[in-house]
């Protein structure tokens, strides 16, 4: 799987590259600033790109802008955004095209390689992965309002994991329950939130995120 890494800090860039190589990824290229990222994304067409939000030259949100521009030119180009902080505003912009193939994670998540590489593969497959912190913010905002309040604690837990982009299997493993129990929770959640049931994992994530972010 070919990956492009956009990160201006040398240590982190090399660390990421060696970590990914260890897990069998193929590093198609590494870049350190916004303009060259956009060029690399368009020319190299990687299977997935790892992009730091803040990049030179201006050190603002060049990485994000370059990723959004590349996805405008190549719809659905899988991009995993890394940042030291997460903003719902940016999450909303990433999800706006509903095309999938999007991830938005805190840089800390890299510490847990399996979860990180899982997320990278999900994004590369066209899935959607949101950082638990983004999801927590979405749920916190909805806490005072219906219909999320109608969910049981367990259902809210499951909802959060769905929103993060996890499959039923991963959720079951995480909560130490059976797959069947998870799908039962899912049915119940979707009914309570008036969402159309969906077998497709990615459609399901997008629907939940859209609902929470509305």
């Amino acid at each position: 799987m070919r990956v492009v890494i956009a990160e201006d800090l040398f240590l982190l860039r090399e660390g990421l590259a060696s970590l990914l190589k260890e897990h069998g990824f193929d590093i198609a290229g590494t870049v350190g600033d916004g303009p060259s990222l956009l060029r690399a994304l368009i020319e190299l067409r990687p299977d997935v790109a790892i992009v730091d939000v803040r990049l030179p030259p201006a050190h603002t949100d060049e990485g994000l802008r370059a990723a959004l521009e590349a996805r405008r030119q190549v719809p659905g180009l899988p991009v995993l955004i890394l940042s030291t902080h997460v903003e719902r505003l940016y999450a909303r912009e990433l999800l706006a095209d509903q095309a999938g193939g999007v991830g938005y994670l805190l840089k800390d998540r890299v510490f847990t390689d399996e979860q990180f590489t899982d997320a990278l593969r999900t994004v590369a497959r066209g899935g959607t992965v949101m950082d638990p912190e983004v999801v927590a913010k979405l749920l916190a905002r909805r806490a005072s309002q219906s219909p999320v309040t109608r969910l049981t604690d367990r259902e809210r837990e499951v909802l959060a994991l769905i929103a993060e982009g996890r499959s039923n299997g991963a959720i079951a493993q995480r909560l130490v329950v059976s797959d069947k129990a998870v799908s039962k929770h899912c049915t119940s959640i979707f009914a309570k939130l008036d969402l159309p049931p969906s077998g497709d994992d990615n459609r399901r994530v997008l629907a939940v995120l859209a609902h929470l972010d509305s």
Partner: protein
Amino acid sequence: MLFAIVLLLTIGCIVFVVVREAKRTSRPDGLRGRIRDRGWGLLLLPIAMAAAVMAGGAHGLIPAELGLAALAIGFAPKLAAKLVPYGLLGLAIFGVMLASTYNDGNTSQVQYLFVHAVSRGATELVLAEAALLFVAGLWLLLRLDAPPAGLVRALTARWLGSGRRGIAGAQALFLIPVAGLIMQLLGPGNWFGWQAIDGLDAALMDLTLLGAALVLIFRSRVWAATLAAAGLLVLGAYGWVIAVFWPVVPGFEYGFADLRNSPAPSPLWSVALEGSILLAAGLWLAPRAMRHHLTDLPDPELAARARQLTQRVQTLTQTRHDAVDTAAAELRRIERDLHDGAQARLVALGMSLQAAQRLFPTNPEAALALVAEAKESSSLALTELRDLVRGIYPPVLADRGLADAIRALALDTPLPVELDLDLPGEVELPVASAVYFSVAEALANVTKHAGARAVRIQLSYSSGMLRAQVTDDGAGGADPALGSGLAGVERRLATFDGILAVSSPPGGPTILVIEVPCALSSPKISSC
């Protein structure tokens, strides 16, 4: 009759001084003070004598007045001393009145001090003596600090001192005699020598002139003095014209010179003398008045500007002090957060790794557990650093500017927020940060206290003023004086001359308005 008035005046003064003296308990201190006071008081005797002589000499008043004066000197030396200036002033007034009765044709004989007045011829000498007495009385009044001395002093200071307006009142007062002379020359039958105007017109013109003169003197001394100088020069020159061309110009009055009334018209040299005096006064006053026009701005403007600047300096001093204070407190907080948070976590992390290294050869499983712990520590350190950074300068504000930062803020608020953001450019970072944290504080208050169902944030910019308004439909009753949060917002904004206004009646709604003067730069252009 006149003497009775003078006597009444003197008695009035005595009563006044006695009453005032009775209220005062302190006595003159030391022998020297006593003698000195008594010495001044002795003057009361010749005054009483003179008054009695003027009254005609035959009266039984002489012993009575002398006795009273002696009693005052003996038993109340300070009181006697204080009475002296009033006596002198009284005699001076009497002299003026005497002179005026002679002028009216009175012929009775009166001994006025050294002058044996019998007819009109003696009036000049009587007046001169009266003037001397008046000056001496006034001087003593000030010297002894007798009751109206303060008033006299204040008045003289006001008219003679050059004071804050730059030109002495006395100089400005020249305008009154100048106006008077012009009025005389404009008088009926005396219109600069031509019979051109009737009495009513002249009176109206006189009134207007006098009014204008008074307004000028009290509104602007500099302008009054300028006009006075100009008037003095013109009128003085006019006096010389009359003196040289007389009798070509028909007869009229010029100042004290009466050129019209035969049988005894004033000599022409008196006109020339008056003209010369006026010219001299004009030449003396003109440069003094002009100096102010050349060097000074109009005084009221200067004063207003000075007041403004003083106020500005006070505000700046206060806000600078607050800003430095706030910055210092903020740095202290950051230092403490780093010390207790990230630094402590990193120490723990190092220790875990150290222990793991030691355990690896013997107990790899325990070592792995320690490494996991270290990872957890670094995660927590990152979280804490993230929160700290957000508090120092929100990343989204640095990335996207004020409007998007407020949008992000709205998204993080657990309430429906209606946004109306209309910002045609970018706000400079320090102001943006102040406004951002102010709005954040307002939103936090709404969430915590107001019990609101919805919030509306408006952001707009017009004519150099950035305006943010946060409106909620909560319970109201917010007061910047109560919570330290809003007071902090006020201080934060004051650094940029910004203001916070809160309208929060009980029952709501609460409207919070922030206004900061600032410039906008052109909108940020994407670098990609």
